[in-house]
């Protein structure tokens, strides 16, 4: 898989009409200081500039949830934000939740419940589930449906995702993310 690759930063090639702004932001615990084009979308900043390609751009309008990440502790779309809007923020992507080896606890539940098929929407769901766990949302709470309404999946028909999410919410908060 790809890592951060400065060769991929192609936004500005000596073009003075492309205005830029300095950006300082923490991504997965690491501080990033750079200069970016003002119109650069956060999704493209994370994917193309930092090589964090777990999040997917599937609609560009904020409707599908595949680009979901966590900003300052809350789930958010990365395709409806400019990178420059996140100055000073703490951003968490799926890469920051992955266990050093194998699958973390929530990922294992998703696998066991067959809560993914093509896998394209999956990283987005996992970020929302992480947020729900951080907020200790009860699996029977009506908020569960609200959070899930923020994601589209074309493959699974959602039933297995419901099961996986509820199971994940039944686990104690400090079991996730697993760093074993």
């Amino acid at each position: 898989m790809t890592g951060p690759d400065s060769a991929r930063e192609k936004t500005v090639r000596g073009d003075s009409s492309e205005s830029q702004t300095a950006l300082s932001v923490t991504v997965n615990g690491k501080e990033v200081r750079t200069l970016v084009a003002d119109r650069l979308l956060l999704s493209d900043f994370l994917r193309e500039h930092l090589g964090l390609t777990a999040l997917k751009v599937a609609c560009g309008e904020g409707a599908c949830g595949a680009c979901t990440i966590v900003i300052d502790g809350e789930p958010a779309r990365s395709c409806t934000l400019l990178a420059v809007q996140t100055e000073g923020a703490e951003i968490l992507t799926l890469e920051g939740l992955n266990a050093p080896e194998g699958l973390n606890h929530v990922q294992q539940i998703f696998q066991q419940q067959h809560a993914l098929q093509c896998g394209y929407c999956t990283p987005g769901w996992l970020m929302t589930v992480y947020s729900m766990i951080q907020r200790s949302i009860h699996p029977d709470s009506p908020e569960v449906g609200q959070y899930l309404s923020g994601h589209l999946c074309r493959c699974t028909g959602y039933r297995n995702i419901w099961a996986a999410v509820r199971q994940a919410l039944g686990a104690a908060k400090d079991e996730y993310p697993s760093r074993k």
Partner: protein
Amino acid sequence: MVDKVNTNIDIYGRPPRRRQYVGEAVLRLEDQELLQGRGGFLPDLAAPNAAEICIVRSTEPHAMVRAIRKERALASPGVIAVLTADDLDLVNEVLPCVDMIPGTLDARHRVMARDRVRYVGQAVALVAAENRYLAEDAAALVEIDYEPLPPVADHMAAANPGAPLLYPELGTNVVYQVKQIDGNSDFAARETDLVIRRRYEFHRQTAVPLETRGVRAKLIDNGERLHVESCTQLPQVLRATLAGAFGIGLDRVRVTAPRLGGGFGCKEMVYPEEILVPAVARKLQRPVRWLEDRREHFSSAMHAREETIDAEAVVSRDGEFVGLRLTGWSNIGAAYGFVGNTPITAMGAMVRGPYRVPNLDAQMYSVVTNKTPLNVLRGAGGPQATLVMERLLDDAALSLGMDRAEIRRRNLIRAEELPLDRGATGFANAHHIIYDEGDYPRCFEAGLKLGEYENFESDRREAAARGKLRGLGISMYVEITAVGPYETARIALLPEGTILLYSSIMPVGQGSETTQRQLVAEELGIAMEQVAIRQGDTDEVPDAVGTFASRGAASGGAAGRMVARELVKKILSYFAELPDCDPSALRWERGGVIILGPVEQYIPLSEIPARLASLRGDREPERIEAKHRIEIPRPSYSYATHICVVEIDPETGALKIPRYVVAHDCGRIVNPLLVEGQIVGGVVQGIGEVLRENVVYDSEGHLQTRALMDYVLPGASDAPADFRLWHMETPTSFNPFGMRGVGEGGTIGAHGAVANAVADALRDYDVAVNSSGPFTPTWIMEALSRPPRISGPVGKKPNRSEA
């Protein structure tokens, strides 16, 4: 809750030993990468130095292109090139269609518009720039002079003489026709028969995989070869088309397809972009990339399902369907899709489903219009066909005062009648439909029971007491799956003692990596962990048919099992060649070679290369390869019963689905976890299609639905609360391993089940349900504003027709 069968979660780190895999709910190993976000989808692959392409698309539905001016675009920052059709050096600009039976007119799609555009979204020019932002800036500066022509968006209007012609040289917009007959096509109604005439309308939908399309291309091998990566279900077909497009040998083209983020049929296509983008790579002599955005996807990825069907059913007073006469028109858009005529052909071929209906006379047409071209979408015409038959059954039951289950019982083909010849199909590579073994009545009764059909009236009354309208819909279908004409596979026993399978099936979400490995591991008698799989590379699998028509496990998997047998034969033959080895003493058992004798020797697979090398005096263990092509003369057929319960809130028109039941038979199940996932996923997709999804054009051919907030997919709240599945496994003699396909059935049954349920919920209102809806709140409220229906069966005098 869906019951899980034999969930096996402990597949990591076990020592290899013989396992039984067919029928096991093995967890997917590919999930590891996917759950970590390392799926390696095309947009995720690093593209250093790749120029980004933005395609300039027609904003006119029908127009002559008088001029294209590139100057302002060329002056835009970061632009590398602005190209039109003339710049692309194509030898052949025509895209393939495999449905062109004799008599079909040539309305094949072209790579790029030249002097005429025929749909909004058609590629007219393209920009290559340093990144997509700059490419889009420049694309907006390309100036195109259109001279609008009269558009025709409606297929019935387009089929009329005097309509504007998309291809004047063809003289008509009706470009394809197929006639399908069975029994006595001249059947006539007797005096006592009921005749039902209906016109059914099917609205336009589109697949919307979460992953949009994308193509990358670069020159490799010192510029001698072209490497194209594309989100395609058909890498081998694309390769052949590319070679023809550039007039170069097949060996100079390599196509690789990474894992797909969903296909559903819209990636079963050779798209203009898949030729354009490589043409740019050749021209610029540098790597290029095109990533489709969602907005352009709505106008340039294939659409589906839009058709009109006139049906006449003749039914005896006993409820037996004597015959069906159909005429149908498919709105195939501006040009053929790869299998663009298949859905309308499937209507005539499959409309009767599991019902006997001995006489059939079907005449189907494809009509070109100024809309995005049409292709297959999950079910490939099956949803529409099923809805027609199932609505006719319910209407006949109503007219005859007969119970809806009873009328179906009287028409279902019995097990002892199968296999059954259903007549010619008109499909280019499946000329005859012959249903294979099965037990439709048993499946039907299981569905009714699981769906609590007998108790439904009390269910309905209870809902009515709460002010809600409940309805129950039944549908049953037979689906063509596991089509041929053939499939291939390659396999290798690597020097380190593991298996590498080269599969012709692409991963699109259906879990093919796991299913194919299960089958090969079972065939060889080894652990799945010993089998690796590679997919989607034409250098590795140059000849394959591809991933569609619910054929991955059944056709691709059959090829995988057969090639594993070839490998075993080869391994045994190598041992047989050894001096002092008696060939008749060799066996393959327990995942290895057995040499019978006074002391039985057992060499497990992992040690075979090393042992052979030492026995032969070779310096190094060698790779042992086999390949196989399996001929598939006949498809096999899955079938299922769907029961759908809907509940309507008459104050808001909101519709929910409190219960959904599927009783199905897909032959020998390889992985029940994945099978259930396909069925539930297919049902929810079908529910979405008939409740809300709708590709909307204005009357002039301008696309109105351009975003996911316009084209409303089903969400998590739409999953039926109570979803019940029941499996039966009737092995089919049409597949060497008894497998049938399952990927599309959920969608095929859902349209008819939901439509029938809506009609049943609204049975007290004078409303006709003769379409796929969509049954939006607006549709429902309009239906509820209609006068009440006169109660009782609409009284039938003998031979009275209903129009």
